[in-house]
């Protein structure tokens, strides 16, 4: 029956209803559902093979309770050690941000495809990618091995991290600049240095400063962390209190870090708000 209806329809030139559905991310249904099944299978495999030892979690819980009870009340009696650590962390953050801001300018300019020849661009981008691929902690361990314990290793670590972060943001900001402005200034007969100071710097400066201030805020947070592997600052003091079971002093330090990060965040937001 159906075939005769279709046949008569085509004879009368009645158009068949046309189908439409949204474009799927993966068009082939076998691949699509196959991937979902694979993901679920891997999840089950991962959970069953990780050997999560529930008994250890169970015995750990009272120990956690014990640590927390020994933490209160926080012990602020060794305040001179505390303030020295905090100040050292802030100094590490400030110094690292300052040198990072300066070093990021040449690296960022060389990493902007619309400014430099391709080989220069590739070298600059490789440096950025390479240094970004290591976490601050890994770099800090490396510098502690080379220069020994103390704030020098912390400053160097955060200089590396700040430089590549600000440089990457700067390079991307310059690449997103409208090509017409660069073209117009080139057309006046301006050399590359004049192009930099008359066109690129006014357009990129507010965002560069904003990113740098954000990085200062991040450096304050990171400076407390890199100390844990021995790279100076309040983190180093904190790590020492844990090994000596001075949990009440640990809590005092943690509270100060929270306060410091709060101030850093507030300052960073305030400055960036004013830059716009």
């Amino acid at each position: 029956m159906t075939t005769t209806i279709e046949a008569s329809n085509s004879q009368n030139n009645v158009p068949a209803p046309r189908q439409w559905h949204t474009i799927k991310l993966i068009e082939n249904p076998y691949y699509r559902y196959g991937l979902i099944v694979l993901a679920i299978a891997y999840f089950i495999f991962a959970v069953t093979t990780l050997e999560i030892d529930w008994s250890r979690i169970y015995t750990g819980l009272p120990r956690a309770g014990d640590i927390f009870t020994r933490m209160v009340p926080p012990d602020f009696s060794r305040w001179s050690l505390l303030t020295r650590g905090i100040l050292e962390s802030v100094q590490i953050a400030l110094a690292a941000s300052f040198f990072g801001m300066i070093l990021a300018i040449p690296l960022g300019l060389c990493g902007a495809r619309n400014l430099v020849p391709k080989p220069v661009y590739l070298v600059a981008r490789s440096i950025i990618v390479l240094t970004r691929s290591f976490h601050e902690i890994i770099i800090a361990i490396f510098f502690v091995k080379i220069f020994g314990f103390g704030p020098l290793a912390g400053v160097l670590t955060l200089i590396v991290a700040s430089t590549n972060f600000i440089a990457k943001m700067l390079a991307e900001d310059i690449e997103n600049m409208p090509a017409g402005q660069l073209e117009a200034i080139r057309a006046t007969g301006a050399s590359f240095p004049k192009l930099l100071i008359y066109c690129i710097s006014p357009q990129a400066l507010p965002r560069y400063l904003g990113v740098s201030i954000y990085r200062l805020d991040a450096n304050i947070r990171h400076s407390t962390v890199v100390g844990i592997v021995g790279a100076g600052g309040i983190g180093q003091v904190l790590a020492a209190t844990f090994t000596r079971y001075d949990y009440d002093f640990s809590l005092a330090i943690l509270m100060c870090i929270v306060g410091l990060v709060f101030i850093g965040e507030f300052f960073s937001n305030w400055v960036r708000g004013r830059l716009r």
Partner: protein
Amino acid sequence: MLTITDLTKTYPTGTAALKGVSFSISEPQVVAIIGPSGSGKSTLIRCINRLIEPTSGSVVLEDLNITKLGRRKLRKARRRMGMIFQEYNLVERLTVMENALSGRLGYVSFWQAFRRKFPPEDVSKAFQLLDRVGLEGYHDTRADALSGGERQRVGIARALMQNPALLLVDEPTASLDPKTSRQVMRLLVELSKEFGTLTLVNIHDVGLAQMFADRIIGLRLGEVVFDGTADQVTEQVLTDIYGEEDWSATIRKVPEGDDDDEDEATAKAAS
């Protein structure tokens, strides 16, 4: 004054944008270049100041072979070639005055440019030009606060600050409304005459081209298919340049300016 000989440009993609363009202009005048999108108009004027490097051929401006120059000499030559763009291309975060003075970047030293300390004669010339294009009192306004018509006036002032022998103008009116377009074109033509520059204008609007240009060059697929005066543009010529279409309403019928009622004062107020 300007002689272009057998200029070609083939992009790395294989697209031949210019296929042997030749023409010569002996005196300062306004020359409109018309042609459909993709006919090579933008490539042509960018090959003249080598923002785009031509593949072969030569450009000679006032006995100077631009195509043979090294980088330093090319920068020096570019000072004599002002450029005006469809999208204005002002440095948006700089003021009107800084944008106008950027036309002097090829002449001043790095430190002068860095400290924005331009010679007094440049500054007074910039004030004069800004007044002349109808932007009196705007010198400390940031460029991103201006309207399209105002931006293009700054663009014109910037180009003229270069003291150019040649003005390269790329679709100056394509982003502007019809009235502002006419005002900007009239200003451009008046100033070209005043400063004695040769002005090459890429333009889509055939009517505007006929109204303002002394000479019209038609490009099609990278080749010159028409070269003559505004009166010589016929329906057949437009068909040669753009292809088959009903052109009867496009050709300008009234030979002399039909818009003399607008003077510069209203031009400023309207933009």
